[in-house]
């Protein structure tokens, strides 16, 4: 029986003066991949930012394993085991690959453990080991995405929020990233995946929510959503 890792209850948020989230409710069961679809500006990224504490919630709640984290500061949420990999990867371009990973493990108090986890990430992504002394900015787009995910894995989070991991990547690389996400999930990480590329996302996820102008307009099992005519027309390219 599966526990619910993350619950959003009627979450509202403002982005500047724009009412970006108008009451979002969704659930992410433990061990699953759930995807959040929608066109640009629908509020997908804002949803993730509100969960991770970058954007304050105006009302509603975020519960993480039953604990209300709506008002927690971003850095405290990380320590609880909820990690957000932001859109555009946001790696530290002037820092080396290894330093990027170390910072991912900032909340770890034990230096040895941190070193061990870096090794673990290198096992996951051998290409990062080759480039550990290079600065992050010199990596290719795909490698940067790997680094971003690897950095998030440093604390071995219970839940991973991924924002557009396929953005700007060529199809071949997208496939590799998706394979990695699947692998992490199979090892036990729960994933909330935001994607533009609905085709890819629905293939990976068990369940999907569709967001339009700050509201959930549709949800269901991925297989069902993939068949839905409206989805096909709007997001899968009819």
């Amino acid at each position, binding site marked *: 029986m599966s526990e619910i890792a993350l619950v959003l209850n009627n979450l509202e948020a403002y982005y500047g003066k724009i009412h970006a989230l108008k009451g979002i409710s969704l659930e992410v069961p433990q061990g699953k991949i759930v995807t959040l679809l929608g066109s640009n500006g629908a509020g997908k990224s804002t949803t993730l930012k509100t969960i991770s504490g970058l954007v304050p919630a105006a009302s509603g709640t975020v519960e993480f394993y039953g604990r209300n984290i709506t008002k927690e500061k971003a850095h405290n949420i990380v320590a609880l085991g909820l990690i957000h990999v932001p859109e555009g990867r*946001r790696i530290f371009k002037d*820092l080396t690959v290894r330093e990027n990973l170390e910072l991912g493990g900032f909340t770890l108090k034990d230096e040895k453990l941190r070193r061990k986890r870096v090794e673990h990430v290198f096992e996951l992504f051998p290409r990062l080991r080759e480039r550990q002394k290079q600065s992050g900015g010199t990596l290719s787009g795909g490698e940067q995405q790997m680094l971003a995910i690897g950095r998030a894995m440093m604390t071995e989070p219970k839940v991973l929020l991924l924002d557009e991991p396929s953005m700007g990547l060529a199809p071949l690389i997208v496939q590799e990233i998706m394979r990695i996400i699947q692998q992490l999930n199979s090892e036990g990480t729960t994933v909330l995946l935001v994607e533009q590329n609905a085709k890819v996302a629905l293939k990976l996820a068990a369940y999907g929510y569709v967001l339009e102008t700050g509201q959930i307009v549709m949800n269901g099992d991925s297989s069902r959503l993939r068949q839905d005519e409206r989805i096909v027309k709007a997001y899968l390219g009819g």
Partner: protein
Amino acid sequence: MSLYYVILQQLINGLILGSFYSLVALGYSMVYGIIKLLNFAHGDLYMVGAFVGFGTLGLLGGILGVGWLGIAAALLISMLAVGLLGMLVHRAAYQPLLNRRAPRMSLMITAVGVSFTLFNTVMVMTNGEYETVNTSLGYSGISLGPVNVTYTQIVMVVATALLMLALHWFIKRTMYGKAMRAIALDPDACRLMGINVTKTIGLTFFVGSSLAAAAGVMAGVYYGSIQFFMGFIIGLKAFTAAVIGGIGSIPGAMLGGLILGLLETAGTQLPFIGSAWKDVFTFGILILLLVFKPTGILGKSEIERM
């Protein structure tokens, strides 16, 4: 004096002056690096540091003496106190603006306000008086022909170098140092790593301000006289030094300080320039340097505007 000795002596002079500039420029550059703020109050923290050191020396002088032991204690206490003051300034004056994502110019003007406040507080408290720092340090030292270096000068330069090395280690090796560099690049991403950004910026202010305080105490001890506006000129010079080296760059600030010290020394000695025109000479070189290397010597080339 032969030309050789003059050059040697002037090199030493420039080095000592430059190491003070470096120490102050470091804090300037660190704060700039992390929140892109030209902290005009930095020179005033240097001044406050000198006064705290002076006060401590007065209080502890009776117990520890006014020799190296007393000075070391004054240095540490001043670094701690001014470090905390720097954190307070950050929390009270700058962080509210950062939270509101205020324009950088406003942040700069706030810094001018902080400078005014610190400067005038000390003026009112000291009634505008000059204070004389009395120590038991003498003028003995090493003489190479006409070239003189006192032990005090040697100790000052060594202490400065040690502080810089410690800072370098802190920035490069510790997690907080790495976090500081990361915040400079992308504060939001840092929040997502579990880094308490506000606290880390506060820590940067602590470190930067305590370095300024160290320089202030050393200047007080070395020169022997302090007053409430002593931070103004060094603030401008540190800013210049930080820019010469490439603002935001820690090694750049060190290098910039030394270069500035040497340039000023050279300007004083050179014919047709002399002390009257030495600042024109220094700024002239600075402008030329920036025209040809627009980001300073060790600066990163990135394009962005205020």
